[in-house]
C-alpha cells in the first residue's frame, strides 16, 4: 500500500504489501447515475456476475423497472460461435423496443468485456449511427480491473464531455459544476450562484441527456466530487481551467468552494459574505447539534468512495472528531491536496490497502466509529464496534450548507443509536 505521509505512520501502516482490496467496482455508480440522468439507460456488457452485483447493490430500488440492465455474455459469444456485435445489436434492439422513452443508451464496459478487448466505443458509434437522433449511444468503462465505485461516474462524465464536442454553434457555459449531486442540492447551489450574480452555469451530468453543457475555452469548471480525475482531464483538454478548492462538504468546505467560484468570477467579498451569511449560520447551528456526540471520538475510515479525505477533514474541523486512519481506494493527489493539507499532522492516509491488515490495524486502534463498506459493517458491529456504512455518502444528499447538519448526523446516528439501545433500561426507570 502507499502511505502518503510515511513519516507520520507507524511501522505497521508503512508496510507495502499487496493484498485483497475490499471495494466495489465502477459499475456500482450506475445505481445513482441512472436516477440522475432520467432519460438514460445503462447497459452493462458483461457477465452474470455484473448483473448480480447491480442487483445486490441496488436491491432496495427494485420497485420500478430500473433503467439499467446487463447484456450477459455466454459461452457461444466467447467461443466465437456468435458474433458479439450482432448479439449486442439484438439485445439493444429488444431494449429500445421495450423502452422507447430512452434518449441515451450508455454501453458500460466490464471486467470480462475489457479482458476479451471487446471494442465498446466502436459498437457505440455503430449503434449511434443507427439509433440517432432518437437515441444517442455512448460508452465508458466501469470495470473492476480499471475502476472502483465512484470512478465509474468519473469515466461516464468524461465520456459525456468528450461526446459534447459537436455543439460548436451554441454559446458555451461560463461555469460547469462537475459531479453527481442530489437535485435538491443543485437547486440550492443554483440559487446561491444567482445571488452571487453568476449566470450561465451548468451541472454535469445533466438531468436530461440532451442538456450536456457546451464547453468552450472560456468555460471555468469546478469539481463537486473529489473522484473526478478523468473528467477534469477531459474538460481541461477542451480548454477550460479548473477552479481549485476543497469540496463542498460541511460549512467550511462549502464556504471555501463557493468562495473559490466567487473569486474566479470576480464577485466582491462583501457581496459573497452577504449571500452566504445566513445559510452559513444555519449550517453551523445544524452541525453544532451533533458536535457533542462526535467531539473527541476516534474515527477509522476504510476505503470506499474516494470521499474519505474530505469526510475526514469535515469530521476534524467541524465536529472535533479525531481520525485514526483515512483509507481511500485511489487518491487524485492534485485534487485532494487541499483536503490533506488541512488534516492534522500524524493522520495516516492510506491508498491501496490489504483489507485483512487494515482490519487488524482497525481492531488494534479500537476506534469509536468505523466508516466502512457493507461487507465489513455487520462483522464489526458483531465485535462491538459502531459502524457507519460508507455507501450512504454516495447516495444521500450531503453537499452544501443545508445538508451540513445531515452529514454530521450520518456520523452521529450510529453513536446515538447505541446510546438509545444501551440506555433504554435506565430511561424506563426514570419514567416510572
Amino acid at each position, binding site marked *: 500500500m502507499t502511505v502518503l505521509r510515511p513519516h507520520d505512520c507507524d511501522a505497521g501502516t508503512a508496510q507495502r504489501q499487496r493484498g485483497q482490496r475490499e471495494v466495489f467496482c465502477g459499475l456500482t455508480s450506475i445505481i445513482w447515475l441512472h436516477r440522475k440522468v432520467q432519460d438514460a439507460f445503462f447497459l452493462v456488457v458483461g457477465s452474470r456476475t455484473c448483473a448480480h452485483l447491480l442487483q445486490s447493490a441496488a436491491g432496495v430500488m427494485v420497485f420500478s423497472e430500473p433503467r439499467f440492465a446487463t447484456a450477459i455474455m455466454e459461452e457461444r459469444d466467447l467461443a466465437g460461435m456468435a458474433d458479439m456485435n450482432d448479439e449486442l445489436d439484438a439485445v439493444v434492439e429488444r431494449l429500445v423496443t421495450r423502452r422507447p422513452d430512452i434518449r441515451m443508451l450508455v454501453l458500460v464496459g466490464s471486467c470480462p468485456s475489457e479482458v476479451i478487448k471487446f471494442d465498446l466505443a466502436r459498437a457505440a458509434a455503430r449503434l449511434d449511427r443507427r439509433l440517432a437522433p432518437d437515441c444517442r449511444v455512448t460508452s465508458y468503462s466501469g470495470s473492476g480491473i*480499471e475502476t472502483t465505485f465512484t470512478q465509474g461516474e468519473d469515466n461516464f462524465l468524461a465520456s459525456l464531455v468528450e461526446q459534447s464536442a459537436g455543439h460548436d454553434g451554441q454559446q458555451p457555459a461560463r461555469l460547469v459544476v462537475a459531479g453527481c449531486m442530489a437535485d435538491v442540492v443543485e437547486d440550492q447551489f443554483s440559487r446561491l450562484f444567482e445571488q452571487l450574480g453568476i449566470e450561465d452555469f451548468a451541472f454535469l451530468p445533466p438531468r436530461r441527456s440532451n442538456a450536456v453543457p457546451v464547453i468552450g475555452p472560456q468555460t471555468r469548471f469546478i469539481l463537486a466530487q473529489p473522484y473526478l480525475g478523468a473528467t477534469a482531464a477531459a474538460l481541461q483538454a477542451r480548454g477550460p481551467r479548473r477552479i481549485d478548492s476543497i469540496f463542498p462538504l460541511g460549512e467550511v468546505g462549502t464556504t471555501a468552494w463557493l468562495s473559490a467560484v466567487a473569486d474566479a468570477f470576480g464577485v466582491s467579498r462583501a457581496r459573497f459574505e452577504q449571500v452566504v451569511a445566513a445559510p452559513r449560520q444555519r449550517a453551523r447551528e445544524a452541525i453544532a447539534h451533533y458536535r457533542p456526540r462526535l467531539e473527541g471520538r476516534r474515527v477509522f475510515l476504510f476505503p470506499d468512495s474516494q470521499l474519505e479525505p474530505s469526510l475526514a477533514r469535515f469530521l476534524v474541523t467541524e465536529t472535533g472528531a479525531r481520525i485514526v486512519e483515512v483509507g481511500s481506494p485511489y487518491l487524485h493527489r492534485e485534487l485532494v491536496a487541499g483536503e490533506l493539507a488541512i488534516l492534522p499532522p500524524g493522520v495516516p492516509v492510506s491508498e491501496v490497502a490489504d483489507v485483512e491488515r487494515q482490519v487488524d490495524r482497525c481492531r488494534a486502534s479500537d476506534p469509536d466509529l468505523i466508516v466502512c463498506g457493507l461487507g465489513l459493517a455487520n462483522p464489526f458491529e458483531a465485535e462491538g464496534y459502531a459502524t457507519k456504512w460508507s455507501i450512504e455518502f454516495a447516495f444521500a444528499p450531503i453537499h452544501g450548507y443545508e445538508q451540513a447538519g445531515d452529514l454530521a448526523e450520518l456520523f452521529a446516528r450510529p453513536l446515538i443509536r447505541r446510546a438509545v439501545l444501551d440506555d433504554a433500561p435506565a430511561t424506563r426507570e426514570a419514567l416510572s
Partner: protein
Amino acid sequence: MKLAMWTYEGPPHVGAMRIAASMKDVHLVLHAPQGDTYADLLFTMIARDKARPPVTYTTFQARDLSGSTADIFRQACRDAIDRFRPGLLLVSASCTAELLQDDPGGLASALGGDVPIIPLELPSYQKKEFWGAAETFYRLVRACAGGQQRPEDVPANSCNILGPTALGFRNRDDVTEIAGLLEANGIAVRCVAPLGATPADLAALPQAAFNVVLYPEIAESAARWLQKTFAMPYTTTIPIGAKATHAFLAEVRALAGLPRLEPASLPGAQADRSAWYARSVDSNYLTNKRVFVFGDAAHAIASARVAANEFGFRICGLGGYNREFARELRAAAAEFGVEPLVTDDHLEVEDAITASQPELVLGTQMERHIAKRLRIPCAVISAPAHVQDFPARYSPQMGFEGANVLFDSWVHPLMMGLEEHLLAMFRDDFEFHDNAAASHLAAHSPAPAAPQAAAAGTTTATASAGAWTPDAEKELCKIPFFVRGKARRNTERFAAERGIHPITVDTMYDAKAHFSR
C-alpha cells in the same frame, strides 16, 4: 448474449461461496478481479452474518494483467492458509479470471504444504449459482468421504440432512423443524451438511443409514454419489405442506425400518393447524382462487401442490428458473393442466403473470415486485433470498410448523372473505374505493398502487376487444378492482365468441352467468 434486468441466480462462484460460508474450517480462494468482493455483502447484509464469508479474493487489476496474475493467486493462497489455517482449501476462479486461464487448481496443487486443496471448475459463462453450489458440495463430499469405509453395523434409524446452505431460503428454520420431526420419530440425525458441517463431518457421512435431501438443487448430485458409492438411499419427498410432510415421514420411517403409522398419529403431526384452518368456514373464500406459482423448481412444485391440494386454490400458472429441474417441473405442471414456464428471464415471467390474471402470486422477490405493479397479492416462497427472507422469528417452510407458516403467509395478503363482499356491495363507500388495500394490510401497503399498471391492463384490453356501452363500462367499475380485469376479459371473450357488439350491461351479466364457477 442475453438481456437481463434482474437475475434469479448469481454466477456459479457465488454458489461455491455459499457452500464455503455454510461450513466450518473451509476456506475459498477465488481468483477474481477487484470488485468481485461485493459478494461478501450478500452474507453480511442479507443474512446478517456476524462474520465475513471465508473467502479470499485475488482482486487483480488491469495493470496486473501484463505481469503475472498467477503469482498473485499463489500469494493469495499462501496468505489465506497462513492467516485462516483452514482444514481444507477450495480454489476457483470467477468469470473474469476464467478468461485468463491461469489454472488455479494446478497452481494451488503445486504450492505444497499439508492443507488439502480442492480445485473447482466453475464455467461462469454456462452455469449458474445453484449448479456452482451443487458442484462444490459434490466435490467436497467426494474428497472427504471418498476413501472412507461404511461400517458394517450402521443403525437403520440414523440419517444425515443434506442441502441446507448459507443464503438458502428459510434453510435455518427448516433444519430445526425437520431435525425435530426426525428425532420425534426416533431417527437420529448424524450430520447436517453443508450448513454447520466440518470436512471431518463430511468424511463421516457414510456412517448413517440414509440421507434426507431437503434441497435437491444443492444436494442431489452428492446424495446420488453417496448412494452409488455406499449404497446409501436418499429421500425424494420435499416436506413442504402438511400432506407432503406426512408423505416425507412415511418415507423416512420406511427407510429407517420403523412401522407405518396413520398420518394423524405420526409424532409431530399434532403441531399442524393448517389442515384445520383450511377447512374452517372462513377459508371458503379461498376456493378456486387463481394462483400463479414461480420459483426454484423444488419450492415451486411443492408450493403448487400445497396451494391446490391443501388450501383449495386453483393453479393458473407454474414455472421455475433452474433448468436443471425442468423435467420435474413439466411433470408437475401436467398435474395441474397448465403450461410449464421454464425460464430465467423475468420479463417472460411478467408476461405470463399478466396473461394468466391470477388472484395470488407465489414467487420470488422478483414476482413480488411484478405483483405489486399489477396490484395482485403476493407471498414469497423461494430464493433468491432477500433481507426479509431472514426473519427474526422462527419461520420454517417445511414440516408441520412450516405448513402453518404457509397458511398464514399466503392467506394474509388476500382480501378477507367478508371484506370482499362488503367491497362488492357498497361501491360508493369512501373507505372501500378502488385504491383502498385490504384494511388489515394498511400498515404494509399504505401508498396507493401504481395507477399506470392498472390503467395499462385496461387500455390493452379495450384496444383488443369490442367497445363497451357507457352503462356497461360503469357497471364494470362496480366490480372490485382485483377481479375487474378478469370480468372484463371474460365478458370480451364471451362477446367476441358470439359476435356481440357493443357490450351492454346484459352482455356482462350473461358472461358472468356463463363463466360462473
